């Protein structure tokens, strides 16, 4: 039954697939970095003793965590051009959507991370004369980040898979590229099998790295 499979189609279109994978990776990495920066700021705001700030950050997080990602992608696809006043590419709009969406999750991870740092460490920094900002920057956040590395990476793997949802607004990521070839060459089974294997390999590699890190940071 598998005799009809023709994997030559992969090699004929390898450049096109690699290009798609580059888009997937670019989207994943920029969304992680942007989400992490924004998420950390949100976490600081959420933990702030200044109640209005903490309320705004909490509302943001609860809002985005209640939305299906696909809705957010769609929504920003139409919203972003409206806000900036001129049409933007699908890629830019999904980038904004992913960063804002991921930030809500990274906020909660970083919040847990910050709270995982012992109170004594905060005291020690304060006792040395560090300001609140310096204490966060040099003492608390580096430790919070370290404690959360495995969870941050798990979130990154989920994000890597979720980027395939850009399909709905026609951004040419890896999955869309595979789909285009599959239909053009009429090799649907081959292409989707290969696509599944590629996602599987990258995610397993990620999980492997996480397990190594967990062992390293487990104390």
């Amino acid at each position, binding site marked *: 039954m598998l005799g009809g499979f023709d994997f030559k189609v992969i090699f004929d279109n390898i450049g096109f697939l690699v290009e798609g994978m580059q888009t997937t990776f670019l989207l994943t990495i920029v969304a992680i970095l942007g989400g992490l920066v924004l998420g950390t700021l949100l976490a600081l705001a959420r933990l702030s003793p200044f109640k209005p700030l903490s309320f705004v950050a909490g509302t943001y997080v609860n809002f985005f965590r209640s939305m299906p990602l696909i809705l957010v992608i769609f929504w920003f696809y139409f919203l972003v051009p409206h806000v900036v006043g001129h049409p933007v590419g699908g890629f830019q709009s999904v980038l904004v959507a992913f960063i804002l969406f991921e930030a809500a999750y990274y906020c909660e991870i970083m919040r847990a991370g910050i709270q995982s740092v012992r109170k004594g460490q905060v005291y020690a920094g304060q006792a040395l004369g560090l300001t609140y900002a310096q204490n966060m920057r040099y003492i608390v956040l580096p430790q919070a980040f*370290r404690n959360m590395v495995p969870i941050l990476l798990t979130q990154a793997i989920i994000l890597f898979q979720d980027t395939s949802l850009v399909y709905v607004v026609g951004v040419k990521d890896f999955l869309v590229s595979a789909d285009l070839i599959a239909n053009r060459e009429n090799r649907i089974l081959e292409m989707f099998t290969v696509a599944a294997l590629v996602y599987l390999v990258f995610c397993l590699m990620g999980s492997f790295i996480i397990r190594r890190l967990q062992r390293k940071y487990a104390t």
Partner: protein
Amino acid sequence: MIELKNVSKWFGDFQVLKDCTTSVAKAEVVVVCGPSGSGKSTLIKCVNGLEPFQEGRITVDGVSVGDKGTNLPKLRSRIGMVFQNFELFPHITVVENIKLAQLKVLNREDQEAGIKALQLLERVGLADQAEKYPAQLSGGQQQRVAIGRALAMDPIAMLFDEPTSALDPEMINEVLDVMVELASEGMTMMVVTHEMGFARRVANCIIFMDAGRIEEDCTKDEFFGSERGQRAQIFLSKILHH
């Protein structure tokens, strides 16, 4: 140097400090002792504003700790503090632990801070451990580094919050030796501890606390003599018999 006047503090409904008044003069060593839960640690944390207090007044070198307008980070940078659990920063090396606040708070040059750090490590006998991470050191070594870290700020006074309570017995002396040396050099010190040997050797005054109240505040000779109050006597008989 350090003055506390009628200091009271509450955690919710529970009053942890009750009308505490005492003072520490320059170059004086004051030992604070008492049963656990008596408010010793809370009292010492109030001195550099790590814990807020609701009533009374604390001044350090003339600066009021509780005032809203006080620059607390600046005041704290002039008072060294050593904690029960060392609280070295685990993500940076020993030498970086001692350099960090010198660079960020005192704005010293990297080279100057490095030299100072190595001198202090030399002094606490750990010059060869500079590039290690805190977790690679024994408890006693970590506490000596923590003392060095506090001294790097050239403090006008040092606060010790049960500096030997988390240590294995064989490591207590190496930390006490450093503290005795500090005291002999004329450092102003406020020390929460159960080490009565240390108190006998270097303390000028002893404060005995019970249930949030300062029950005794007297010279060492008075305290270890026969004039102390009943509660202090019971406490002492409990800890000195072992």
